[in-house]
């Protein structure tokens, strides 16, 4: 039961970090080739990969603030992961550059000739224009990075023994911070993803992205926790009760994901308006339709059924496995959300360029490397020392 040699999670992290940097660099290099060979495809795939990896730092930002406001042991268990993830936001701002440069490849409203022929796009021009797009992106990143910095500083003060005062300050930031995050993320989702199909609109769109970010963050942090659980310093501190809470939260977010997506779908499906349905028609036919069914089955039904069980929710390894699976499904979901937007007509064939894979590991590798570096800068967990009482309680 007791392993004589205590494995240190920090060492494993270091190994992973080195691998991640190498893989990331290779991925970026391959994506660089794509940039020259097919700029359009590269930019599109890059956008998907970028939005995928952006979800974890932003979700961390939001969940941290939520945790400061509501409390709960689950937050302590993943607090360090989230704090490190938040600090990677400047890197993601850097990864946004190819999107800013490739705007013309992504958004038809940047084409003057298209806009000249399209009354609706002319009407929307005060919002959908290149300058506004860039300025807003700057504002979004400023808000997020600023919030992350404020929270980081507050957390540092708390760690240094700031006590109740530091906590109160964190809460004071978190309330308005969540409001700002919500607004910024909503408009970021509109700008970066929704406006690829500039005629279409859905008022719940921002919320769908926000829920997705929360789910991705939970899956990522659960996966990491499950990897760290049996080594120092988490061993003995990460209790089944924490795992159970995290499992319940992931379960809740799986349900929320299904809820917001179903709401959007059934409202558009039932009303059956010509300006709204094309978005779903594209995504419900042919190969994209198969992806949609896969999402229902594997992004919702399977995790829902598995996570119903209390035993599963308390099993660290099993929950980690499900979390890894959910991270994969998040990618499928994003590809399904954004991929069909580039096709025209309601029966557009499914098309995913190979550079999705290179961009995905490229951004992801570098991101994870930086994340691991950030993680190592601070204590690896904020969970308290093992407490015999708590251990006893946790066995029920």
């Amino acid at each position, binding site marked *: 039961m007791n392993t004589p040699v205590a494995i240190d999670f920090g060492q494993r992290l270091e190994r992973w970090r080195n691998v991640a940097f190498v893989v990331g660099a290779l991925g970026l290099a391959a994506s660089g080739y794509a940039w020259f060979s097919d700029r359009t495809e590269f930019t599109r795939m890059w956008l998907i990969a970028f939005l995928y990896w952006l979800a974890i730092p932003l979700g961390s930002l939001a969940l941290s603030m939520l945790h400061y406001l509501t409390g*709960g042991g689950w937050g302590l268990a993943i607090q360090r992961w989230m704090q490190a993830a938040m600090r990677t936001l400047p890197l993601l701002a850097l990864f946004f550059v190819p999107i800013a440069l490739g705007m013309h490849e992504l958004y038809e409203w940047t084409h003057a000739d298209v806009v000249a022929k399209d009354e609706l796009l002319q009407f929307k021009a005060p919002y959908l224009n290149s300058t506004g797009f860039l300025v807003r992106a700057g504002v979004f990143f400023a808000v997020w990075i600023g919030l992350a910095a404020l929270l980081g500083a507050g957390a540092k003060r708390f760690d240094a023994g700031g006590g109740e005062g530091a906590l109160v300050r964190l809460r004071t930031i978190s*309330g308005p911070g969540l409001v700002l995050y919500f607004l910024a993320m909503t408009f970021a989702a509109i700008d970066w993803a929704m406006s690829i199909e500039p005629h279409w*609109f859905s008022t719940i769109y921002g919320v769908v992205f926000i829920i997705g970010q929360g789910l991705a963050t939970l899956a990522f942090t659960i996966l990491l926790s499950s990897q760290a659980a049996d080594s120092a310093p988490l061993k003995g501190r990460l209790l089944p009760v924490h795992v159970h809470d995290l499992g319940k939260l992931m379960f809740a977010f799986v349900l929320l994901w299904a809820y917001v997506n179903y709401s959007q779908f059934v*409202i558009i499906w039932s009303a059956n308006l010509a300006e709204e349905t094309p978005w779903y028609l594209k995504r419900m036919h042919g190969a994209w339709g198969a992806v949609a069914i896969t999402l229902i089955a594997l992004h919702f039904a399977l995790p829902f059924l598995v996570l119903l069980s209390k035993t599963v929710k308390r099993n660290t390894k099993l929950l980690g496995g499900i979390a890894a699976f959910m991270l994969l499904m998040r990618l499928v979901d994003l590809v399904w959300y954004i991929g069909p937007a580039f096709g025209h007509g309601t029966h557009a064939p499914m098309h995913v360029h190979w550079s999705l894979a290179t961009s995905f590991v490229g951004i992801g590798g570098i991101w994870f490397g930086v994340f691991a570096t950030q993680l190592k800068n601070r204590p690896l967990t904020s969970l308290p020392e093992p407490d015999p009482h*708590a251990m006893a309680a946790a066995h029920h």
Partner: protein
Amino acid sequence: MSSAKPTGAASGAPVIGPGHSLASVTDQISKIVLSRQTPTGWFIGLGVAMLGVGVLITAIGWLLWWGLGVWGINQPVGWGFAIINFVWWIGIGHAGTLISAILLLLKQEWRTSINRFAEAMTLFAVMCAGVFPLLHVGRPWLAYWLLPYPNTMGMWPQFRSPLLWDVFAVSTYATVSALFWYVGLIPDLATLRDRAKSLVWKRIYGALALGWRGAARHWERYETAYGLLAGLATPLVVSVHTVVSFDFAVSVIPGWHATIMPPYFVAGAIFSGFAMVLTLAIPIRRIFGLEDFITMKHLDNMAKVILATGMIVCYGYAMEAFFAWYSGSPYERYMIVNRMLGPYGWSYWALITCNLLVPQLLWSSAVRRNIAALFAIAIVVNVGMWLERFVIVVTSLHRDYLPSSWGMYYPTVWDWALYIGTIGLFFFLLFLFIRFLPMISIFEMRTLVPATGEEPPKKGLHIAASAGPSGEARRP
């Protein structure tokens, strides 16, 4: 626990006053029910509420006699007060389930002293809500046609209609809320049976307690069932107001057809529901001297929930307004302009004042600690949420696609009478409830008493406020 270092969210106040034991909790709460002496305030309140019930009966009688023409509804506003008040009441009901179920799942101990009361509020609010659609169908004696049963018409309800989803959602909600409430009451009914002095009351409470005797096996199944009910009620409560929002959103009316409607309706329901809980809890804790059980921490937490859900609701308003423009649809654009500047513009701005501006005061902890201010804000929110439904229903319908059929909606005195009547009914039931049943869950309050013998309280974690000793240990 109270003497341990502050673990609560902001105020750090405990969820139960100091110095309580199993016996004192049991005695103090059951005394309210079993005591022969009834506070005079109760009689006055019940009397006023009965006046309201009288108004209700008159309004329903008048309506049945003359038909729906006595209401202000007509083309183009065919929904009017009936649906406004229905949604308003259903929304209020939601806080009860939320407090009971979701907070139980989240192990928020502060729920314990207000859950029973909030569940009762849910039940009564759903009853009041049910009055409106039943009467609005025009021939309420045929309302059972809404249910699928093998009828002589050989046909079935239309399952593609959100109005039918509503029938299922609301009736399921009413049933499950009643079950949840009753199951929660069983051990307390046994407590009252054991405490009651007269044989008649012993028998009444005894029959209702179903012979509960607190056996360990029973408790085990009971707690499992209660936890499962909470787990089931949580998605249910979300689904109910989602379905209510579908009533509007799956249509094609500008101002109704918006995909943000489900989450924003759910948030709005919680918003108004918590406001109603505050509206009721503040006077009741005063009248019945329950300051030890409904503490400042409860009020503070409820205020925070109101603030949070209020912000979500306002997010919904903002999205509607932005997308009305962004959609580029002339109908959507006209809808929002008409909402703001049309003949009902006053209601939109009043709504913004009540739901957006006034709740911002709750950012201040000083306001949250001021009971009078909390009470006032709660009332304002109740009004604001009523206005929200008014705005959605009336301004969207009165000017839709066809300018030739534009019109105005003026509620009649019978619309108002029915609305006031249901408020009377609500308070009437509530007064009966607080007199004859324990308004605070006795057995759950007992679990909050430190050192029940099961295990000593743990120290709170750094920030973790909620995972208290009883939470993980007792709940499955």
